[in-house]
């Protein structure tokens, strides 16, 4: 669908709360169009922070500073007059926890279309809702109860609903934050199946800590460690012929912490950027 690659240019993200922590350090990566790129790395390495900085989701948090830039088809995401909601519409985001909006199944998918006014008539809206529910293999399971609350679906179904909801606004890029980590194996498999089906049509960036999942799904792999990109390559080369010592250690099943000169405190989790307003930990779950 899109030919537009996403690029980061010396992107750094710093949490400036009680302690200053640079969670992402000068990352420059290209995300090729119509491929699924996984960002892998141990917990607390800055994967989710990097992901959220790609569509300015950190703007809604306090105490986060961004340096460098993200380029969507060559246009700056940060140094622009385009409002952040328009950018987030082009770069969609599916959170880690499967979350149905507190409305019906139908309205969950229709939500984005409604806020952007992306439909001509009720019939058009109906058709779009069906199209996107079919894209995530959910239509057959919910066609007879579209008016039921989204929250009544199973977690696996809700996660697919979240993907459908994100696709409905027709983003150029889809960011998925460990979208299967909260699911049982059967539900995770159905979400993976959906992503596999979608990856030829969309530019998908998937954060995961599961190497097995990266192997199964990815076209490209980015290995992030302590906020830095250690290695980035196509999936086959990455797993079969890793270039970096730390990649080999990580693939070998251990965290390469001993081999790094970084002081121990930098491995700590960044603080939740906005404390009591819910704990969107700025990073992966610990």
């Amino acid at each position: 669908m899109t030919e537009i690659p996403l690029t980061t240019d010396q992107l750094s993200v710093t949490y400036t709360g009680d302690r200053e922590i640079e969670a992402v350090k000068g990352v420059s990566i290209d995300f090729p169009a119509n491929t699924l790129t996984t960002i892998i790395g141990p917990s607390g390495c800055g994967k989710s922070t990097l992901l959220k900085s790609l569509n300015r989701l950190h703007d809604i948090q306090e105490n986060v500073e961004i340096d460098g830039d993200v380029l969507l088809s060559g246009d700056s995401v940060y140094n622009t007059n385009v409002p952040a909601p328009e950018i987030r519409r082009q770069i969609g985001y599916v959170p880690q926890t499967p979350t149905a909006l507190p409305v019906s199944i139908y309205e969950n998918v229709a939500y984005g279309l409604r806020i952007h006014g992306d439909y001509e008539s009720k019939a058009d809206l109906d058709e779009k809702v069906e199209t996107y529910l079919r894209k995530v293999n959910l239509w057959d399971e919910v066609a007879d109860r579209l008016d039921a609350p989204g929250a009544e679906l199973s977690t696996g179904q809700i996660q697919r609903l979240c993907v459908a909801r994100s696709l409905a606004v027709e983003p150029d890029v889809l960011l998925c934050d460990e979208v299967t980590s909260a699911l049982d194996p059967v539900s995770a498999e159905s979400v993976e199946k959906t992503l596999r089906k979608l990856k030829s049509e969309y530019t998908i960036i998937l954060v995961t800590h599961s190497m097995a999942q990266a192997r199964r799904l990815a076209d490209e792999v980015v290995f992030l460690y302590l906020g830095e990109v250690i290695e980035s390559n196509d999936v086959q080369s990455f797993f079969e012929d890793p270039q970096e010592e730390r990649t080999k250690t990580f693939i070998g099943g251990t965290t390469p912490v001993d081999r790094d000169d970084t002081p121990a405190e930098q491995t700590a989790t960044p603080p939740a950027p906005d404390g009591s307003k819910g704990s969107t930990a700025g990073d992966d779950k610990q």
Partner: protein
Amino acid sequence: MNRYTTQRLFGIAVRAAALLVVGVLLLVIGVTVVRGGGVLLADPSIVLTPPGSRYMLEGTGGFLHAVLGSLFIVGPATIVSMVAAVSTAVYLQSDYSSKRFSDAVNMFLNVLWGTPPIVYGVFVLTIIIATGAQTSLFFGIVAIAIFQYPIMTRYTDEALRAAPETVRESTYGLGATRFESMRMTVRAAAPGVIAGLVMGFARGIGDAATVLFTTGRSTRMPGGLFEAATTLPVLIFDQAMSFNPEVRSHAYAAAFVLTIAVLGLILLSKLLAGRYARYTPGGNR
């Protein structure tokens, strides 16, 4: 003592505590229902009859004036307070306000919540005296609204705080503006917000101290916004102090009406909240 004996004793103690609470509640409701219900059954018309000219002395007529007074004061007060409370809570929990500011405001709200209602009554009385106005329905509305505001705000704030952060993230991730995202968060918090509104109404309709000095304790039907009025709790106090046994018996009937109104409201809020809870994330809890 054996570990299992300790466990058993603790079980007995907590059950006894729960039983005590339920027992007291049942006793209060029971006495009100039996005594007030008896009076009401004998003459149900007293709720819908305006008071006679010598009502407080001879018990002629009924207490419709207080029923209407309560509704006319607490109804508008709740609406005013609700708008202010929901707006404040939304502001505090939205991305328009910093966390530090919202924490500071919450501390003030907690202090306000803990302030005895009579203080609000005296505060409004001071305004009445300073402006040379008279006690009236209007100042009752003002006093009750001020009294309800911190209660409703804290409830709404807590409900919004408990709404899943991922609802916010999801809506932003779809390109929602702060306003659109906030609307969805309020929807996710709807059961808690409704509970707060009903709690505010129930506290408002049951409070005597705030309206004691501000509405004028009228024994006539409410005549207008700036006319004196009375409410059920104030009337109950006055009736209970009466030397006339019939007037005193009306106090139970009025208490019965008040209790039923509050119970009915809480039931209604449960039903409403239940309907919304189905839609909230994790709504099958």
